[in-house]
């Protein structure tokens, strides 16, 4: 007799396996109790050897390729246990029982034999019915319907999982035709019965994470026929969220980002933001877009932003510099390799356009197209992703106006561009007009860059974009 079973089964059961010890003898007095419920499982805690069933086509041996469970895992009937392969056929082996896996007879790549034990499962007879918190309240009569079926004097069998399924769906077992051994009612029989009723495709039953509230809802208040036993009234409890936290190690690219951002934290950032009126640029781009398309290039605003930044860097080269580790030396980089932040499946990657100082707006557009298509295909090379000296992040394509970008070492400055919004502004005549406004938020390394420098650079950049014709004067 399992004493362990007594302690864990605090709920009142109407059905008792012959072998489960009785903690409340009065329960046996009820009339329906005389029909003892027999399950296919034997007493609690018995180890059953689940043998590898026939694969068909006269196959006698297979190779074990993957285990879906490990020793100690709990399985339900029909859960996948492992994947085996035999001569170009991959077979999913599912469990015939509810229980706990106690032993795996094979390792990966071992040969397994049909008819020999595959796993040992400890059958848990009473597991499928109710958990500790639930109180299974059903009038004895209806419970009887759910659990027993007498056809021509034979008792009909159904496993605890099947009984629960029937109960949850208010199905009378007597109305279900059992197709298992000895007319046993299987899970499929219940599902088939349900399908016929609703005429709907049933999705595979979800894991019982949400089971507790469901069962509570279906618990029917008992008609007090069982006087000798105290039946507590079910208390309405709020639905418990059974979601679980998931912990994963930080690996690969994420790890590298952690390192980089931690290094970035050491840089004293200061921010500077401004508003740019892009009305003229929007118009200019509309005119130039078809010309670029003829040449097979998609023209966005970025090439203009990038070229204007490079022109600004010519006047304020300290923004295109790098400070060494000990803050002893500042290196002014000759090339303007302007990085463009891209959001990919990996996360944030920053390919850069090399030598913008000698590129035309069109050249930049071509290069951007190339980087963007490689980026989305996940095929950017190391040279595309290294050597950057200054970065622009167009967060506006996703949304947002103001941002506080983080400088990417070993650079000393970064700009975040918000989305372009149509807003009312006053012109020189004092009239209100529709302006295309974009916000820019710069961050710079305050150890070598001062606010005034950043502001002047930003003003110059802004003037090029607000009046694109002025770019022509300084284009190299």
């Amino acid at each position, binding site marked *: 007799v399992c004493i362990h079973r007594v302690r864990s089964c605090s709920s009142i059961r109407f059905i008792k396996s012959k072998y489960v010890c009785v903690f409340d003898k009065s329960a046996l007095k009820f009339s329906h109790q005389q029909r003892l419920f027999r399950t296919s499982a034997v007493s609690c805690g018995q180890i059953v050897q689940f043998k590898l069933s026939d694969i068909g086509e006269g196959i006698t041996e297979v190779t074990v390729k993957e285990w879906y469970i490990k020793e100690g895992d709990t399985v339900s009937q029909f859960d996948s246990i492992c*994947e085996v392969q035999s001569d170009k056929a991959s077979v*999913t082996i599912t469990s015939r029982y509810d229980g706990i896996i106690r032993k795996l007879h094979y390792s990966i790549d071992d040969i397994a034999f049909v008819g020999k034990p595959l796993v040992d499962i400890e059958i848990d007879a009473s597991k499928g019915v109710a958990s500790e918190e639930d109180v299974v309240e059903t009038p004895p009569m209806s419970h009887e319907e759910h659990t027993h079926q007498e056809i021509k004097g034979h008792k009909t069998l159904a496993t605890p999982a099947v009984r629960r399924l029937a109960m949850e769906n208010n199905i009378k077992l007597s109305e279900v035709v059992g197709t298992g051994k000895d007319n046993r009612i299987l899970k499929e029989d219940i599902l088939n019965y349900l399908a016929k009723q609703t005429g709907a495709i049933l999705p595979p039953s979800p894991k019982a994470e949400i089971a507790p509230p469901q069962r509570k809802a279906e618990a029917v208040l008992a008609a007090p026929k069982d006087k000798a036993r105290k039946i507590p009234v079910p208390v309405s409890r709020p639905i418990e969220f059974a979601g679980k936290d998931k912990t994963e190690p930080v690996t690969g690219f994420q790890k590298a980002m952690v390192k*980089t951002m931690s290094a970035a934290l050491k840089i004293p950032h200061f921010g500077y933001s401004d508003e740019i009126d892009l009305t003229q640029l929007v118009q200019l781009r509309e005119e130039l877009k078809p010309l670029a398309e003829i040449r097979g290039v998609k023209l966005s605003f970025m090439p203009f932003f990038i070229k204007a930044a490079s022109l600004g860097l010519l006047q304020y080269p300290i923004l295109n510099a790098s400070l060494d580790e000990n803050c002893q030396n500042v290196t002014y980089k000759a090339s303007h390799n302007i990085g463009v932040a891209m959001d990919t499946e990996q996360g944030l990657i920053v390919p850069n356009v090399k030598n913008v100082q000698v590129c035309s707006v069109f050249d930049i557009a071509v290069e951007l197209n190339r980087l963007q298509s490689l980026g989305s295909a996940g095929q950017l090379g190391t040279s595309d*992703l290294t050597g950057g000296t200054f970065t622009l992040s167009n967060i506006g394509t996703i949304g947002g106006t103001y941002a506080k970008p983080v400088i990417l070492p070993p650079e000393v400055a970064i700009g975040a561009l918000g989305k372009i919004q149509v807003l009312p502004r006053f012109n020189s005549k004092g009239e209100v007009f529709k302006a295309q406004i974009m916000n820019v938020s710069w961050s710079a390394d305050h150890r070598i860059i001062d606010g005034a420098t950043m502001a002047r650079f930003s003003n110059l950049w802004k003037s090029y974009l607000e009046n694109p014709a002025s770019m022509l004067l300084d284009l190299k």
Partner: protein
Amino acid sequence: MVLQSLKNCLWLSCVLRTPKACFWSTASGGLIIQSVSNDVYQNLAVEDWIHDHMDLEKQQVLFLWRNSPAVVIGRHQNPWQECNLRLLRQKNIKLARRRSGGGTVYHDLGNINLTFFTTRKKYERMENLKLIVKALKALRPQLDVHVTDRYDILLDRQYKISGTAAKLGRTSAYHHCTLLCNADKFLLSSVLKSPFKGLKSNATPSVPALVKNLFEEDPSLTSEMLLDAIAKEYAVQHQIDHHITLINPADETLLPGISDKTKELQTWEWVYGKTPKFSVSTCLNMVYKDSILDVKVNMDVKHGRIEVCNIDLPEQWLPPGLYSELVKSLTGSKFCPNETTALVTTLLRVCPQDNELHTRWSLLCENIIRLM
């Protein structure tokens, strides 16, 4: 489960090759369906869906499909071992892992796929292949085609024109096979040749074979003709009407849950992550400043991630701190060029800014990435 209600009201609209959103035919015994999509992931998802949701007791199903260029590896295979991944990426050829066993195949529109769905009890590959041979012979009696005991179909006793694989579940099973009509043989042989050296694994290996297109044997044959002939023979053998119902694998109302299945088949975790454990043992020959460095690399890869990583560099070639940082970062990371590129370039940001160092780092990393 069959949609009983739809069955009743939409039966009349199911006529020959109709694209209507109903393929539940009341004709018992069998059902022939054809996919309107050429996307390998969508089509594989349809197979999964039928396998998981359809009741095959009353009717068996024949599913006809074709894919735009793709390489499909078996459930327990190793993509690095089976195909030229770099070439695939260059040519934009998709890589998919199917749920059935067997070897690697190249798909394009000149290659047709046939899936025979039955209950587990009625799973019988030979019968299906004999059906195909019968259909071919009915179409072109002079064709010398026969089924081998390895479940291949051979043309002229030497050229493989069909490969087979199967999947068995608890209650249902499917057997699918290819049929070479007019595929790009040149591309086929180049993508299915892996340049990888030093790979040790217990993954199912593919058995290479001489192939030939049926089109080469008889230029009057087209994929459509072959599909039709096979469907006709299936209809005769299952005593059903020669109806082919078209289905759209993107139709969520007809196939609820199909988009999730399609997405899952495209995840890195499925395509690469399901590779059985393998080890890489190779030597990088790096050309550096007029000399060649031999760098031994050993890696153990499990679930597509680097479990153990050893790089045998000449001492002090990289500062020790940086070297250990590289090894530490690679451990646990995906055996994937994209991920590794992003990783090493990001790590470079926190290295001392030294051109020499950067050159060495880039050289080493590029060579390692080339392995993937």
